[in-house]
C-alpha cells in the first residue's frame, strides 16, 4: 500500500486474481459422460460460463455402411446406434422401408412390435433413471433399475435370442412368432412393475436432496426446445404435449389408450417426472396390447429381394429419446441410395449448451444425464 504507484499494484493483482477462469475438459473418459462424450467447460470458479460438446469418438459411419448393404442386411446395424433401445431403432427402420415399399406389416406383427417397443422404452428409461440417479450421487437406484431391466431383457431373449442388440423385427413384419407364455411373461412383468416404480419414487421424488439437485437445473423453455428441434421427454417436460405415437400413429398405437405426460418448467426434475410417468404409460400400453393380440400372419408378402421403387421416404417414430427418423432414398436397386438417420440424442444434445450455461459443474453432470443421450446414436 505504501507503493507510490498504487495503480500499478492494483493492475498486478488484477492479472493475478482475474485469471481464475479455468477450462475443464470433461471426457471423453469421464464417469458421467455416458460413453465418450467430451465437454469443454469454461468455468468461473464452479460456474459454467461457456460449454462446447465435442463428439464423434464413436463415429462408425453407419449411414455410409447403409449404402453398401441391402435393405435387410442393414437392419442389424441400426440396433447399434441407440444400443440401449435397439428394438425401437429396428421398428423405425423396418417401418420406413415398408413405407418405401408401399406395404405394411400385418396387424399381429404390429401389435407385437408395439409391445416389444414399449418394453424397450421402459428398459431404456430404467437405464436412464439408474445412471442419472448415480450421477447425482444416489448409488442404490441403479441396481433396482437393472433388476427390472433384466426382466425385460429376459423377455427379449426368450423372444428372439438376443438381449441388447436384438434385431427383433424384420422388414415386412416379424421373423419369429411369440413364444409360449409370452403374454404371461409380459403381464407378470407389468403387474410387478407397478409397485416397483412406486418404490423408486419413494427413494427420489420427495427426497429433499434430489429435489434440490434437479429443480431449477437445466431449464429449457418450450420455445427454445422447439427452436432447437428437441423432441421426446425433454420436449414434453418443457410443456409441449407432443408425442409421435399420438400425432402420427404408427405400429398399433392408435388402438391403445394412453396419456402424454407433460410438465411446465422444463427443468431436470420435470424431465424426471415425465419419464417416470412415461414408464407407467408404457406399462399400460403393454397391458392393453397383451389383452388381445390379434391372430393372423406375422409377415407381409414381400419378396426375398427388396427393390423399392425409386423415390424417397421419411418415417419417424417416438423412440425413448425422442423422434427417431429415417430418411431413405431408393434408386430402385437392392441397396438404399442414401439412409439418413435423424438421431434424437444428437439433436437433443445440442440443447446442452443452452441448459448448462450459468449452472455449476455438478449440474453439468445432471444435465448430461437428463438429456438421456446414447453416444452410439449421437455419433452413429
Amino acid at each position, binding site marked *: 500500500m505504501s507503493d507510490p504507484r498504487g495503480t500499478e499494484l492494483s493492475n498486478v493483482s488484477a492479472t493475478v486474481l482475474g485469471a481464475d477462469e*479455468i477450462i475443464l475438459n470433461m471426457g471423453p473418459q469421464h464417469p458421467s459422460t455416458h460413453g465418450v462424450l467430451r465437454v469443454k467447460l469454461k468455468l468461473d470458479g*464452479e460456474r459454467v460460463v461457456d460449454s462446447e460438446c465435442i463428439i464423434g469418438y464413436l463415429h462408425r459411419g453407419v449411414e455410409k455402411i447403409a449404402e453398401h448393404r441391402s435393405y435387410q442386411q442393414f437392419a442389424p446395424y441400426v440396433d447399434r446406434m441407440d444400443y440401449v433401445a435397439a428394438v425401437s431403432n429396428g421398428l423405425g427402420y423396418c417401418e420406413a422401408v415398408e413405407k418405401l415399399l408401399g406395404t405394411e406389416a400385418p396387424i399381429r406383427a404390429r401389435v407385437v412390435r408395439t409391445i416389444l417397443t414399449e418394453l424397450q422404452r421402459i428398459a431404456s428409461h430404467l437405464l436412464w433413471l439408474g445412471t442419472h440417479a448415480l450421477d447425482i*450421487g444416489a448409488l442404490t437406484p441403479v441396481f433396482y433399475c437393472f433388476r427390472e431391466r433384466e426382466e425385460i431383457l429376459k423377455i427379449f431373449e426368450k423372444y428372439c435370442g438376443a438381449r441388447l442388440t436384438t434385431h427383433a423385427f424384420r422388414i415386412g413384419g416379424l421373423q419369429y412368432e411369440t413364444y409360449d407364455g409370452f403374454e404371461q411373461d409380459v403381464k407378470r412383468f407389468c403387474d410387478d412393475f407397478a409397485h416397483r416404480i412406486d418404490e423408486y419414487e419413494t427413494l427420489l421424488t420427495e*427426497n429433499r436432496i434430489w429435489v434440490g439437485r434437479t429443480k431449477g437445473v437445466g431449464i429449457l423453455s418450450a420455445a427454445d426446445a422447439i427452436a432447437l428441434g428437441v423432441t421426446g421427454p425433454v420436449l414434453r417436460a418443457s410443456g409441449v404435449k407432443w408425442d409421435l405415437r399420438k400425432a402420427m400413429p404408427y405400429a398399433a398405437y392408435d388402438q391403445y389408450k394412453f396419456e402424454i405426460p407433460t410438465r411446465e418448467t422444463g427443468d431436470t426434475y420435470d424431465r424426471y417426472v415425465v419419464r417416470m410417468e412415461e414408464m407407467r404409460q408404457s406399462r399400460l400400453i403393454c397391458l392393453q396390447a397383451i389383452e388381445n393380440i390379434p391372430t393372423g400372419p406375422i409377415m407381409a408378402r414381400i419378396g426375398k429381394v427388396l427393390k423399392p421403387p425409386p423415390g424417397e421416404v421419411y418415417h419417424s417414430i417416438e423412440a425413448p429419446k425422442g423422434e427417431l427418423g429415417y430418411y431413405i432414398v431408393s434408386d430402385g436397386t437392392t441397396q438404399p441410395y442414401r439412409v439418413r438417420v435423424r438421431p434424437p440424442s444428437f439433436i437433443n444434445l445440442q440443447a446442452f449448451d443452452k441448459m448448462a450455461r450459468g449452472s455449476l459443474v455438478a449440474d453439468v*453432470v445432471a444435465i448430461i444425464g437428463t438429456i438421456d443421450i446414447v453416444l452410439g446414436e449421437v455419433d452413429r
Partner: protein
Amino acid sequence: MSHLLSPSIMRLVLPVIYAVVIVAVLPLLAGYIVLVERKVMADMQARLGPMRVGPHGLLQPIADAVKLLLKEDIIPDKADRLLFWLAPLVSVTMALLAYAALPIGPAFQIADLNIGLLFILAVSSLGIYGIVLGGWASNSHYSLLGALRSAAQLVSYETAAGLGLISALLLAGSLSMKDIVIAQYDQGIWFIFYVPIGFFIYMVGSIAETNRAPFDLPEAESELVAGYMTEYSGFRWSLYFLAEYANMIIVAGIATTLFLGGWLRPFASSHTALPGTSIELLDALPSLLVLGVALYCFYLAPRQPVKIQKLVMAMAGGLCLIIAGVLVGALFASPAVLQGIHGAFWFLAKVFAYIYFFLWFRFTFPRYRFDQLMRLGWRFLIPLALVNLIATATALLATREWGGSLFFYTVLADVVTLAVAMFLAKNDEVDSVVPVADGE
C-alpha cells in the same frame, strides 16, 4: 521381572505399545470397514457383494491391500513432486496422530491430555492439508476443484460440528476425553439424551468432515472423477484411503465419547448381579454376542463351496471364540481388567454402529450440490447449533438456579431448538427452490 513392570516404567511403555498396536491394526480395520461397507451396500442394493476371496469375501481386504501395494506408482509429469509426495503423508499422519487422545476403553489411551478433545479436533483439522495440497500438487483441474471444495467444506462444517460438540462439553465440564466419559457415568445418562440436537448436528458435520456421501463432493466420482485423489495411484492412493477411514473412526470415536457414553456399557450405573455370583447381568452380554457370531460362523463353515473357504470360515469362528473367551475371562478378573476389555468392546461396538449410519446415508441419499452444501452448513446447521448451545446453557443454568431435573429443562431446550430448526428449514426452502408452477 517385577521391576520391569513397575508403574513408572509402564507409564512410558504402555502408550508406546498402544501406539504400535493402533498403527498396526488400523489399516486392517480400515480394510474390514471397507468390506463391511461393500457388504452393507450390496445388501441394500439387492445383491451379494464380494464373495470370491475367502468365504463371503472375508479375505477381500487383504487381496485389495496387496493389489494396491503392487500397483504402479504414478506421479504426473507436471505435478509438484515434493508436495505430491508429502500430501498423502500429511493426511495419514494427522489421522493417526488423533488416536493419541482417543480413549478406547478406560485402559487403552495413549495420552490423557487435559485438552484431549481439542487436540483431536485440531489434529484432524490439519488433515485437510493433505487433501488441499495433494489436490493442488496434482496439477489437474479435477483435483484442484476437489481440493477447493474440500477446503471450503471442512472449514464450514468444522464450525458447525464444533458448536454441536460444545453442547455436550457444557454438560461434561471438561475437555479431557476420560473425564467426559466419567461425567456421563456419574450423571448416569449418556449425553445424547440431554442434547440430541447437538448429536444430530455433530453427526451431519462429521459426515461432511470425512467427505462421506451425501457430502462427498470433494471426491464426487460422477463430477470430479475422484476429486483430489484423481491423479493418485497405488500406495499413495491407499494412504488417502486409510486416512479417510481412520478419520471416520476418529469422528465416530468423538461422537461415542461425547454423546454415547464412550466405553460405558448401557445402563453402566445400574448394577444387577447374576444370582449367586458377582458377575453383572449386562457384563455377560458381550460374550454372548460374540459367542453367537462364532456359532454362526461354525454353522456357515461346512456350507461354503470350496474347502479353503470352509477352513477360513471356521478360522473366523475360532477367532470369535477366542474373543468370546477373553471377554468371559475378563468377567472373573479384577474390575480394572474387566473394565478395560469390556470397555474396549463397547467402545468399538458404538463406533461401528455410528459408522453403520454413515454407510446407510451413503447408499440412501443423492449428493448435495456445492452451493446447497454451503447453504445447509451456514444457514441451517450453524444457526441451529448456536441456538442449541444457548438453549442447553440456559437449561444448565436453570437447573442450577431453580433446581429440578436437568432432563426436564433439556427437553424444553430441545423443543425450542426444534421449533427454530423447523423455522430455518422452512425459510431455507423458500429461498432454494425455484418457483415452479406444477404442470399437468
